[in-house]
């Protein structure tokens, strides 16, 4: 039995004992090969990897007296550096070899000579490491110790954040100056105080103020796309400000201040403001106005309620505000991420924007977003109403009756004229009910069209009168020739019959030239309106004829019996005084300005642009202008023959109510007396620019 056990034991041990030598050799050679490969790579890596050069800083700070001169410090540290590279290389190689041996289970895998050989850094690698890393490492470490020294030296120069906030500038400067002197262990001579203060302490204090200001500015301009509540903003502001602090450092000073207490204190308020602004911006961007169609429906549903422009705007605005204010919080909650909604709901319960302020905000939004569609809706309704309620005015086919023109002309600014105009406007509407439904602007536009047509009628009447007056000489000549043969009464009838057709024949061309030629496009009634002479014109002709006949029939005044001893000198032909004047009507600062220019210059006259105000002042102002002009003209003429060319020009293509026609009528009326005088030849024209 003993033999059996012995054999079995041998059988188990023999393979192990026999295999061990080859296995050991293979393990050793594998370890060697592993080391060889790893060290080859390690060598390349060693020259590339940055070297830990903190020892340089340590060396320089532990014995600063040895490293004061830069070049000497560099030379000295280079020696340390070289020794360190060699040591570090050897240590790393030893560590690697130990690790490889341990993991291969061959403790004696590397003999001492091998370890010594591979533990020595090759010259090429050594030079490479030195060239690549020494200069950079030295510069970095030198700067590090210099900066540290500078911080140490100037530590007392810089105020703390609390000092900056807590002391007035002068007190702070004084305190720092004193502290700096104490820290340097010397007493500052009086004369040097100014130097220390202005050149050393003041710039440092100003830098502190600058950084504080930059911190505040940064907070003002910081924007977070995610933050919603004041808490979010407060966290965001503090975090981003902390991260940004190094950016505020000046090149001159190393001090980077932490958040100043005053700045920190402002964060909650600022956060609240930003949260509020975020909310307001959201409302601004997301509030949807009523569409033009909706607004139109609202107006048409209550036309009379919306007649006045201001009332209509108020009604639509009230609806807009109600809807927007009711929906605002809900919409804001819905637009944030689901996990934030409860926070936002909580925040909105604190009423971040007071109701009054919120209303003002929505007023702005209304002006910006709702007003245009309200305007468009109204414009659309006005256009429709013009067509349906005032079709003739809109098509410009309406023509006032001769009687209406005659009654209205010259009475525009009077109550009678206004009453007549109102009656005409009501009369021209297609139905009285619909007239009552017309919007304020519809009536105004219809009124403007009516006024234009009435103005044309008045112009026709005046032109016809001028034609009559222009025949005066002919009538005189004809009457003189016929007076001896025909009785005055009969002569008057004959002359009327002679001149009325003549004037009537002249009128169409005159009408076309004076009234319709300047108009483009021409109104719809251009071919049919004012073709015949107004009854009052016929009457004027009759009156004129009668006056001429009467004048001719009066006996000649008896000339003085004694003729002047000397024959009167031949009458010198006197050149008429040619005057060119112009009135320009323009707008400035919401006022109508009437300027005069040319040979007669008056003081500028102003009229308000608001219709009601305008109406109050129109008559008075125009009368004053006409009187002043006439007086100036008379003074200027001094009995001479005058040829006056007077232009009335309207700037900006605007229609200033009835201003142009009324100014012309006033001037016409006031100059009539002068015009009747044969010394005056006045040509009055108006144009639009």
């Amino acid at each position, binding site marked *: 039995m003993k033999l*059996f056990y012995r054999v079995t034991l041998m059988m188990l041990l023999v*393979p192990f004992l*026999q*295999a061990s030598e080859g296995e050991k050799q293979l393990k050793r*050679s594998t370890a*060697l090969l592993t080391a060889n*490969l*790893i060290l080859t790579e390690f060598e390349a890596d060693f020259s590339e990897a940055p070297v830990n050069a903190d020892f340089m800083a340590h060396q320089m700070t532990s014995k600063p007296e040895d490293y004061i001169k830069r070049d000497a410090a560099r030379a000295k540290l280079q020696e340390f550096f070289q020794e360190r590279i060699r040591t570090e290389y050897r240590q790393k190689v030893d560590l690697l070899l130990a690790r490889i041996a341990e993991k291969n289970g061959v403790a004696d895998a590397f003999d001492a000579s091998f370890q010594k050989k591979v533990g020595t850094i090759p010259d090429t690698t050594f030079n490479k490491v030195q060239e690549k890393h020494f200069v950079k490492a030295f510069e970095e470490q030198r700067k590090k110790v210099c900066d540290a020294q500078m911080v140490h030296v100037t530590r007392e120069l810089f105020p703390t954040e609390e000092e900056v906030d807590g002391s007035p500038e002068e007190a702070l400067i004084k305190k720092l100056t004193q502290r700096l002197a104490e820290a340097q262990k010397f007493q500052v001579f009086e004369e040097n105080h100014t130097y220390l203060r202005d050149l050393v302490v003041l710039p440092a204090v100003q830098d502190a103020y600058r950084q504080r200001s930059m911190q505040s500015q940064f907070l003002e301009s910081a924007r977070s796309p995610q933050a919603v509540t004041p808490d979010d903003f407060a966290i965001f502001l503090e975090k981003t400000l902390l991260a940004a602090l190094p950016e505020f450092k000046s090149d001159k000073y190393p001090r980077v201040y932490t958040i100043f207490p005053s700045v920190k204190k402002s964060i909650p308020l600022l956060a609240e403001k930003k949260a509020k602004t975020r909310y307001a911006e959201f409302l601004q961007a997301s509030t949807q106005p009523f569409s033009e169609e909706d607004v139109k429906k609202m107006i048409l549903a209550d036309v009379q309620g919306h007649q006045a422009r201001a009332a209509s705007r108020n009604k639509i605005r009230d609806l807009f505000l109600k809807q927007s204010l009711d929906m605002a919080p809900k919409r804001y909650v819905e637009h944030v991420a689901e996990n934030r909604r409860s926070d936002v709901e909580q925040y909105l319960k604190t009423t971040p924007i007071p109701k009054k302020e919120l209303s003002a905000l929505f007023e702005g939004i209304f002006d910006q977003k709702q007003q245009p569609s309200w305007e468009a809706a109204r414009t659309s309704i006005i256009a429709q109403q013009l067509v349906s309620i005032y079709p003739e005015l809109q098509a410009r086919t309406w023509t006032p009756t001769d009687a209406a023109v005659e009654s209205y002309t010259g009475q525009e600014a009077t109550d009678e004229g206004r009453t007549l105009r109102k009656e005409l406007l009501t009369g021209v509407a297609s139905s009285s009910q619909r007239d009552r439904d017309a919007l304020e602007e519809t009536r105004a536009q219809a009124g403007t069209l009516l006024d234009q047509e009435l103005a044309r009628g008045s112009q026709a009447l005046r032109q016809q009168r001028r034609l009559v007056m222009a025949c005066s000489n002919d009538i005189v000549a004809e009457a003189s020739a016929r007076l001896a043969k025909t009785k005055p009464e009969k002569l008057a009838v004959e002359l009327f019959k002679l001149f009325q057709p003549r004037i009537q024949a002249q009128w169409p061309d005159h009408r076309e030239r004076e009234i319709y030629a300047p108009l483009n496009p021409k109104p719809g009634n251009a071919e049919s309106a004012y073709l015949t002479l107004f009854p009052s014109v016929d009457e004027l002709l009759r009156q004129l004829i009668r006056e001429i006949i009467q004048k001719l029939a009066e006996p000649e005044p008896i000339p003085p019996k004694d003729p002047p001893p000397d024959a009167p000198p031949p009458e010198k032909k006197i050149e008429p005084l040619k005057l060119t004047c112009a009135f320009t009507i323009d707008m400035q600062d919401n006022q109508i300005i009437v300027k005069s220019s040319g040979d007669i210059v008056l003081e500028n006259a102003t009229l308000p642009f608001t219709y009601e105000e305008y109406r109050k002042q129109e008559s008075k102002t125009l009368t004053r202008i006409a009187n002043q002009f006439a007086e100036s003209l008379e003074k200027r003429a001094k009995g001479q023959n005058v040829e006056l060319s007077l232009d009335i020009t309207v700037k900006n293509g605007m229609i200033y109510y009835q201003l142009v026609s009324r100014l012309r009528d006033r001037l016409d009326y006031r100059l009539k007396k002068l015009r009747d005088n044969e010394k005056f030849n006045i040509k009055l024209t108006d144009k639009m620019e």
Partner: protein
Amino acid sequence: MDAKVRARLLKWIGGPSQDEIDVDEILGLMLQISLALMMIFMIAFFMFRFKSNKQQQEQFIEIQRQKITVALEKNEQFFRTRYGLNSITRMDDKGNTLYQMEGLIVKGTITDNANLRSAFVDGGKRAYQDYTDVMTLRQAWWTKVLTDAELVPADLTQENWKWLAATVDEKISSVKVNCTEVQLLAAVAVQSHFLQYPEKVTDSDVKRLLTRFLQAKDEEQRLIIPELTTALRKQSFHYLETQAGIPMLENLK
């Protein structure tokens, strides 16, 4: 028996006095003593007889074992030759086995010497084949050993049967260890060559592990080294396999 004797006898055995005993009783006593003596003689005889048989048996086993031992030696040489070990190895003066690796692997390559090459390549091939199926190999050993010993299995005593089984297994293992040793040393020679020419280490796993090693932290480096070692060992055997065109016994581990 005279009276004196009888009396002395009775006194000696502590029996009754002469006056108290009769003749039959004395005869009976005599018979018992005779039987006792006979038993002693019989025991002595049988003891002698048993010892003699055992010696004969041991002698038989020993003779049989000597035959088997001779056959085993012969058989071992046969397999060593078959696996090329005799061409590659030799004994030194002290009886230690020496391996001719310097002649076998030249500059990292298997030699051109036909004998050595054939011993390594063909022998390695056969060894791999045989050791892939150890049961068949063991059968072959048994058959060959018993044939050489001119025995049939029935002749084997129980002890020799067990002994032979253990010895055959030991021989098989021993030969395998030698074969493996040759291949291990060949791998060592290859690695020595790689040491001189590290650029020839082109295995992608090795490269990858080296790269990882340099980028790794301390603890991870410790984990990578065994992986790298295994990869290098594997690469060495793979290198031999590629050159010889045969699988290595390393694969049978």
